């Protein structure tokens, strides 16, 4: 497997590795994939009062392309609003990282992780609003 420069860069210097407190109401957490499939991604976002993602973190169990896809995803969601972040497509990731066809599913997982994190954040916030009459 020949890796693109960008995949190597993200693999060697992953951006935003780590964790945010998952019980914090301003944090959305998405965990996608399965250990039996060889890939699990956890992506977290912290959203400020203006609905802007001000921080993001990831942890990934998967190949170099999966690590690079999730690292890139955290870079891209930062500074975007929740709605803007929802428009990130796996094809954008494929293009940016120059992923070969066999690694496309790694980018799909990253898109899924973003969506799952956004959904978690929205669910928490709807619940919060629901509790304040």
């Amino acid at each position, binding site marked *: 497997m020949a890796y693109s420069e960008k995949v190597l860069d993200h693999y060697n210097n992953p951006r935003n590795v780590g964790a945010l407190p998952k019980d914090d109401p301003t944090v959305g957490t998405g965990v996608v994939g399965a250990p039996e499939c060889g890939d699990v991604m956890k992506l977290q976002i912290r959203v400020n009062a203006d609905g802007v993602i001000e921080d993001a973190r990831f942890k990934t*169990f998967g190949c170099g392309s999966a690590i690079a896809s999730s690292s890139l995803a955290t870079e891209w969601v930062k500074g975007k609003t929740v709605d803007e972040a929802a428009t990130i497509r796996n094809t954008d990731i494929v293009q940016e990282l120059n992923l070969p066809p066999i690694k496309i599913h790694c980018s799909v997982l990253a898109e899924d992780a973003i969506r799952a994190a956004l959904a978690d954040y929205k669910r928490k916030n709807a619940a919060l609003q629901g509790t304040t009459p």
Partner: protein
Amino acid sequence: MTPNLPIYMDNHATTAVDPRVLAAMLPWFTTKFGNAASRTHSFGREAEEAVDKARDQVARALGASSAKEIVFTSGATESNNLGIKGAAHMLREQGDHIVTICTEHKAVLDSCMALEREGFRVTFLPVDNQGLVSAAQIEAALTEQTILVAVMAVNNEIGVVQPLEQIGAMCHARGVLFFCDAAQGLGKVPLDVEAMHIDLCAVTAHKIYGPKGVGALYVRRKAPRVRLEAMIHGGGHERGLRSGTLAVPLLVALGEAAELAVAEMPAESARIGALRERLHGGLTAQLEHVYLNGHPTLRTPGNLNCSFAYVEGESLLMGIHDVAVSSGSACTSASLEPSYVLKALGVDDELAHTSIRFGIGRFNTEAEIDYTIGRVVEVVNRLRDMSPLWEMVQEGIDLKSVQWTGH
């Protein structure tokens, strides 16, 4: 001391040609280039003599009683095809059933499947959780229709050594031919076609420090006399079993490599075995959750196959890019399926994805082992720090209890 980089530690995939082997083969390309079938002049005769010597060397390495029992081929894939399909076709009248094991090399499995498409029936036996099959297990699978048993000497992924002597003795007692793919066994473990009752045995030069593209098939001529149907027809070379002008330099190299491999096996096994223990010991001393795949002792000295839980294999390979090893992870395979060998051992898919195969060989040094330990430990720790699974395990979460969104 930092060794020269990159380090090659994938000696199950292939090996470097030993300089002694190279020296032996070189003259047969240039000054001594005759066709071994040209009996009318000295060029041909000296080539024929060289081929005779190589045949003798291979026969001796396998414990064959006659050099006439050696058929030269292009490698173990061809030897496996010729041995299995050739014998099955010849014995079709006697029976249509073959017994093999599911951890065989693809060249054996696919040859058997090709025979299935022709109407033969094949039993693919499971192995135990250490990769072994027993003679009793095979015997229980035999029927009146069984003509052939195919069991490899040494597995190419986990290095486990099958009980060939017991299997061979049982096959001969039951009047069934015993085929053995010994591509990974020659020079690594004692092999003796007589003592082990092997009727057909496949070997290849590039696993024993010889060149790629040459191998041999041992075909027993006495008790029983094994007959094969040829696959490649032509000028009638190799007693009609494998036509085609003999690749004299390659055969010379195979002969030399086989002789060296067997002569040096005792000393080499001790040295390589010590390196393997150093590697395994070093890794497990510094890392937790490292699991050995395959039998702990019934394996070749140079094989170490282990799973580094919570770290996907391809990402680990990427991190230790200056050490050449391989992984059973799906991510490294074109099929995106984890290793079928590890699966057959009952290794969880999750752990199969984290497996690494180290293949230590003749040219590896202690300094290389120490460097490898350092690299693997560093990269595994780095990747575990970014593994969501590792994080969950540290938090005390049982991964089996998690609802995954996986496919």
